[in-house]
């Protein structure tokens, strides 16, 4: 409310309405906050981190925050952005959409955050996006891997920094039909993300000449997978592709590991988040996806890991994983985009983000990455990994078995489903 120049249209509507209701002075007038700054001092830029601290993704949310903070500290050490210091604030979104809405409203209207960052759960991300789109606030969805985020739920103010279920299944399925076998069984979590991901897997398998022999639906909050594992053994597929996430994949992992079922059949899982795996390496099974790994043999990775560790001594997880990495990269690119735009005007920053291109070295990944201006999802290298049989230390859980460059794992369905509103229709503001 206070600091933002809303569009003329919005302001007029609002004033007219309240004048009609109250019959008195326009509400927005006398109560606009006036920050009188000391001469020459520039106001800081405030970032709002809508990260989960409790609920299913509490761990990941906090890891997300750790990566983001590293990026902020790096920029502040160089004098901030546009000569202005960067401040940040965070609140627990509780893995709950209703809380996400409230936190977003609070950050924008009370805390005057110019940019919102952070999400793991797609529902929370969507709730925040609805609020952000209302005010024109730029929102970075750092870690939700729902294909709908880049598809029907895309938004001009939202940018997605994680690979989604379709990217990962494309990366994993491509060669597996020929190299492992043609009979596939799908395990699908019975909600939107699961279905979308499994659909993509099915298309890939059938295009490569394979066959889906069965698709078992797994309701959300399933704790006991014995009946599924028995069916898997009875059906004798060559490959089992799981589109199971959240708490359910953790239970499945433990139970598969206990049975030592990993190996025959081959298992292909979707993305695994580092905070979810930390502490239980023996439960890793099958082949799974990730956007980054702390032991990649690439320039810059070791230094980044050291910097992250120095900033997070004594934390619950000793090395950064994909979640923290996504948070770091997203925040860093946002700050760079503001620099390139030369202003905090949200439309200008959006345009810079839409044209974002990173070299592989800059990203610490194998391939260059870029922002798709049509879907607002970052197209990046997708890695496939499995449990490391010969770890060099006790954090070396993964063995990277392959990497795909972004153009080969494109989510083809997304651009058709994504309809972004034109730039002119987004409320503008400038901090």
């Amino acid at each position, binding site marked *: 409310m206070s600091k933002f120049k809303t569009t003329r249209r919005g302001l007029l509507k609002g004033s007219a309405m309240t004048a009609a209701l109250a019959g008195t002075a326009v509400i927005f007038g006398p109560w606009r906050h006036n920050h009188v700054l000391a001469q020459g001092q520039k106001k800081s830029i405030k970032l709002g981190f809508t990260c989960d601290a409790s*609920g299913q993704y509490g761990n990941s949310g906090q890891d997300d925050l750790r990566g983001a903070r590293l990026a902020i500290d790096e920029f502040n050490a160089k004098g901030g952005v546009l000569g202005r210091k960067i401040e940040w604030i965070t609140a627990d979104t509780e893995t709950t959409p209703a809380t996400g809405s409230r936190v977003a409203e609070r950050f924008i209207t009370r805390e005057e955050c110019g940019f919102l960052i952070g999400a793991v759960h797609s529902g929370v991300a969507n709730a925040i996006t609805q609020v952000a789109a209302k005010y024109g606030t730029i929102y970075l969805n750092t870690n939700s891997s729902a294909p709908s985020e880049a598809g029907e739920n895309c938004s001009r103010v939202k940018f997605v920094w994680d690979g989604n279920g379709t990217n990962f299944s494309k990366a994993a399925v491509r060669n597996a039909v020929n190299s492992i076998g043609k009979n596939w069984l799908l395990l699908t979590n019975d909600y939107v993300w699961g279905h979308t991901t499994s659909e993509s897997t099915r298309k890939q398998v059938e295009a490569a000449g394979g066959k889906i022999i069965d698709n*078992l639906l797994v*309701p959300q909050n399933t704790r006991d997978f014995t*009946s*599924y594992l*028995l069916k898997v053994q009875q059906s004798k597929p060559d490959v089992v592709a799981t589109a199971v996430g959240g708490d359910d994949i953790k*239970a499945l992992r433990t139970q598969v590991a206990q049975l030592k079922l990993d190996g025959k059949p081959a298992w292909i899982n979707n993305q695994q988040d580092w905070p979810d795996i930390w502490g*239980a390496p023996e439960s890793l099974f099958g082949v799974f996806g990730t956007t980054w790994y702390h032991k990649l043999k690439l320039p810059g990775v070791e230094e980044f890991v050291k910097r992250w560790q120095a900033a997070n001594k004594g934390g*619950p997880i000793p090395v950064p994983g994909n979640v923290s990495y996504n948070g770091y990269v997203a925040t860093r690119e946002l700050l760079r985009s503001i620099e390139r735009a030369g202003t905090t005007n949200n439309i200008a920053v959006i345009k810079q983000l839409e044209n974002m291109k990173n070299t592989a070295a800059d990203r610490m990944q194998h391939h260059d990455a870029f922002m798709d201006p049509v879907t607002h999802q970052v197209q990046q290298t997708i890695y496939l990994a499995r449990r490391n049989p010969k770890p060099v230390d006790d954090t070396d859980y993964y063995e990277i078995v392959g990497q795909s460059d972004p153009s080969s794992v494109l989510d083809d369905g997304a651009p058709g489903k994504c309809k972004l509103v034109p730039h002119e229709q987004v409320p503008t503001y400038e901090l």
Partner: protein
Amino acid sequence: MLLDLLPHLVNGLTLGLLFALVALGFMLIVGLMEQINLAHGSLFALGAYFALVIVGGERSLSPWIGDAWYAVPLGVRYAVALIVAPIVVAVIGMGVEVLMRRTYGKDPLFGLLLTFGIALVIEEAIRGVWSTRDYVLQTPSGISGGFIFNDLIWSTYRFYAAGFAAAAIALVWLFIEKTPYGAVIKAGAHDNEMVRALGINLSRLRLFVFAFGTLLAAVAGIILAPIWGIRPHMGVDAVVPAFLVIVLGGIGSFWGAVIASLLCGMLVGLTGAYASEWSLLSIYLLLIAVTAVRARGLFGKKSLLEN
């Protein structure tokens, strides 16, 4: 075709026994004290967490335990955890009973709501101490892993857990039916004035029943932890099925609860195989169907909770 069905029947049976174990402590308190203890789930969780701390696993969990303890074989640590953790939880359970005393004689709703609040506080405390992340309870190799039977790999631990559950049910039943203490407890539920008149300390009796019930909840937590995982809201996984099973079987009926557990286990196991999307919802639907026909559940007797 039938041969394909057999493993799922066995699975359903083991699942049913596990449900019964989870519901055991809850059932005792409801049946014998006619108090609903919604904190059952959180105490279930506490049992698992305490066992985790005792067994060790990750150094960060129990920094005060020296290296000497980790040198002790896992089997011994696990056995110690299985004994000590439930006792600690039972002490906490006695604390809960003391708090509950204010609600005796009032509408049972107050007891329900008080334990709901206590459950919430315990769950938040767990989250504060151990954070939101998942933990894994290690089990001795003798009862872990899998074995092959009939061309299928089965989980050894699951059968151990189911066997443990069966033994626990039998022991509790023996205790209630065949020992003088059990007789006193049953009498106290039936007519507590008479019990007092006979010179038995009723409040001590109630304390004991509560302690016993919560001890069983903790034991269930430790046994189920390797299957269901350890996280702060794991209590909900326990208390909702326990509640369902008790009402389905009928409040006040020991064997009603056991049979209801087996029924639910079979239902989840079979739907898991043939209509997996309905596996979790099926028990709710069963409950609604049964109570529509027989309001008191399968074997329920009229109880104080009905008034």
